[in-house]
């Protein structure tokens, strides 16, 4: 099928044309080409979703088909979840390019080229059916993301953010590559399906356990799982708004997609029998991430860092969903990725619009200065409630299905912890509504940065971009809210999720071209308990919104901004995860 190849090639080709030619440097021409390419990629991905809902689309590049279960060629595999995630990444990229239309600091054809490279990497990463190809696309999206986060090189913070981002993620990807090398040594294959078949007949040993740990940790760095998360707030806080929304909505989620994809195609055979041990380790990491991210989020007064830590917290929620290692919870993960991703992306755009209008993203400096921006204030309020999982909106539906999945496995205590995490995140956003847009509560001590005040008092210059951003933010948040109300959503995703976790069906389709029928799955909406949890977390968020920012604490001290510390945490975390897996599985 040419569709899958084109979805990668179109943005890649456009990026090369934009980056390599001098005649297309005019801003509007670059805008038009980039938007056209990203929209085309979005259309191709949506077409893949539609086509793959009947049967998985497998494209063997160059016609190198597998023979007798041995694959020498490289394949792109599109099932509805993979193609759907690629389409979501493309949608956010289109939105990011629209936001960038009016921004001065993105006025370069190289910016557009990098955005399209990142998109090509993200789509290729979703569709690749070969572990080394996954690595290559992972690096492609990674390297273009490093460059994008540090795009405003003239300032100190973007430089440091990009440095931390690039160094920690490079260490992560070398762990991933080491894991791939060990797996290749064991199986003699790189194709996911063939590796899975080769491992399925054996008992897991220490080598397989360590390889799984290395691959998972490599992806965890991108997914910002504690203790691999330190770089994220630094990078997201300094990137241009148009990039932040792509990062927060899609890039981090792709890291977890990598874990899920590799687990269910390669490791499910040998490790599946010890699923509980894997589940416990991943669940512990997920809960730790959700709580650490939420506490850090509640303590922030820098609004972009606040949203960045909200991303960390919700990556923890998602990991909890993946950790349950079961198709029903995976439906929740898929719903949450889109619903929560849209709301977070909208919130980032809203923060950007506030920065355009008032020249600051510091909650204390902005105190009461948003009183005359009712639309933006309402937008922040809606985001806060949605992030706190107020029923029946998008993020609620996803979290509820994850909670129900946990309860089914006898892990009823997971849900209250997720409630606390969401409430802290939503409460932090509601607190910003109270202080910035309503001017209520204790007035913060005056800050001695008078210069910032003036930047906001230039309305004619800033009005237009800000208005465009507000419209985009409204659209994103609106979509995120409506996502949970779509009739038949869960029923539509459930068969795809059940198919995603079926290793044998995947291998049969990829290696032998056997069409597996869509499994009949009984899907359920959220239970009454989940509705109560949703209402409780929204109420709790309202209470948290009345509280003051958390003062400096030991947890914040750990986020030192030193890249050396971050890498030390990363190495320690990887050693612990590898040790745990080696002990429990080996």
């Amino acid at each position, binding site marked *: 099928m040419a569709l899958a190849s084109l979805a990668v090639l179109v943005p890649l080709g456009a990026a090369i044309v934009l980056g390599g030619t001098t005649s297309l440097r005019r801003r509007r021409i670059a805008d038009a080409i980039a938007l056209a390419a990203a929209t085309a990629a979005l259309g191709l991905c949506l077409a893949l979703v539609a086509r793959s809902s009947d049967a998985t689309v497998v494209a063997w590049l160059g016609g190198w088909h597998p023979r007798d279960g041995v694959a020498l060629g490289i394949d792109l595999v599109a099932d509805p979840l993979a193609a759907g995630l690629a389409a979501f990444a493309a949608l956010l990229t289109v939105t990011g390019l629209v936001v960038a239309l009016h921004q001065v600091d993105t006025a370069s054809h190289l910016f557009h080229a990098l955005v399209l490279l990142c998109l090509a990497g993200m789509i290729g990463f979703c569709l690749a059916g070969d572990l*080394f190809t996954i690595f*290559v696309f992972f*690096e492609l999206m990674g*390297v273009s993301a*490093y*460059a994008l986060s*540090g795009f405003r*090189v*003239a*300032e*100190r*913070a973007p*430089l*440091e*953010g*990009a*440095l*931390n981002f*690039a*160094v920690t993620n*490079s*260490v992560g*990807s*070398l762990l991933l*590559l*080491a894991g791939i*090398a*060990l797996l*290749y*040594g064991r199986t003699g294959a*790189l194709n996911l399906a063939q590796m899975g078949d080769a491992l399925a007949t054996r008992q897991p040993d220490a080598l397989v356990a360590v390889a799984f740990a290395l691959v998972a940790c490599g992806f965890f760095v991108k997914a910002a799982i504690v203790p691999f998360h330190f770089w994220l*707030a*630094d990078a997201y*806080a*300094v990137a241009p708004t148009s990039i932040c929304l792509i990062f927060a909505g899609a890039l981090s989620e792709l890291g977890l997609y990598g874990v899920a994809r590799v687990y269910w195609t390669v490791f499910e055979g040998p490790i599946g029998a010890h699923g509980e041990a894997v589940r416990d380790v991943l669940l512990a990491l997920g809960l730790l991430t959700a709580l650490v991210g939420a506490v850090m989020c509640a*303590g*922030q007064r820098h609004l972009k*860092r606040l949203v960045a830590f909200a991303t960390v917290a919700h990556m923890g929620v998602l990991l909890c969903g993946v950790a349950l290692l079961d198709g029903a919870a995976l439906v929740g993960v898929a719903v949450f990725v889109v619903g929560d991703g849209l709301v977070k992306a909208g919130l980032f755009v809203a923060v950007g619009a506030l920065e355009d209008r008032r020249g600051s993203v510091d909650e204390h400096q902005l105190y009461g200065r948003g009183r005359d921006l009712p639309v933006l204030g309402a937008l922040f309020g809606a985001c806060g409630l949605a992030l706190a999982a107020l029923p029946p909106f998008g993020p609620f539906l996803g979290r509820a299905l994850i909670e129900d999945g946990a309860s089914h496995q006898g892990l009823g205590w997971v849900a209250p912890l997720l409630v606390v995490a969401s409430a802290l995140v939503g409460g932090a956003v509601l607190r910003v509504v109270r202080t910035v847009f309503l001017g209520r509560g204790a007035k913060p001590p005056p800050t001695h940065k008078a210069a910032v005040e003036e930047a906001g008092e230039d309305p004619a210059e800033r009005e237009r971009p800000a208005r465009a951003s507000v419209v985009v933010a409204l659209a994103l948040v609106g979509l995120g809210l409506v996502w949970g109300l779509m009739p038949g959503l869960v029923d539509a995703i459930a068969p795809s999720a059940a198919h995603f976790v079926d290793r044998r069906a995947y291998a049969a389709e990829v290696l032998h071209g056997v069409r597996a029928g869509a499994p009949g799955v009984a899907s359920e909406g959220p239970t009454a308990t989940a509705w109560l949890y949703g209402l409780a977390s929204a109420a709790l968020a309202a209470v948290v919104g009345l509280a003051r920012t958390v003062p*400096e604490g030991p947890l*914040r*001290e750990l*986020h*030192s*901004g*030193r*890249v*050396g*510390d971050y*890498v*030390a945490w990363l*190495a320690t975390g990887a050693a612990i995860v590898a040790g745990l897996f080696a002990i429990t599985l080996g």
Partner: protein
Amino acid sequence: MSVLAYLVAVWLLLAGIYGVVTSRHLVHLVTCLSVAQASTYVLLLAIGYRSGAQAPIFGDIPQSTPVVDPVVQALTLTDVVVSATVSALLLAIAVQAHKRFGSVDPDELNALRG
């Protein structure tokens, strides 16, 4: 190959990461990262090595000659390219830091915290 190659790979990884963690100079940091990345090259080549085998070029050797695994060599080459890209980007950041802020100590950039 003997176990030595694997030990070298582990050693390079640990030494490289130690260097990154303790580095006080951006160029030194980038070089240490390259050392850590070199561990994956050694690991890959060690996995594909066969004692007494030829290079996998079948121009003038018979088809049945034992050769080392060409796949890992291709992976290593790709990996070298990826690492070079990352190093180039990081060195560009180091140059910018030096030009604009007169410092190449990662601790002195110090704009982000908490």
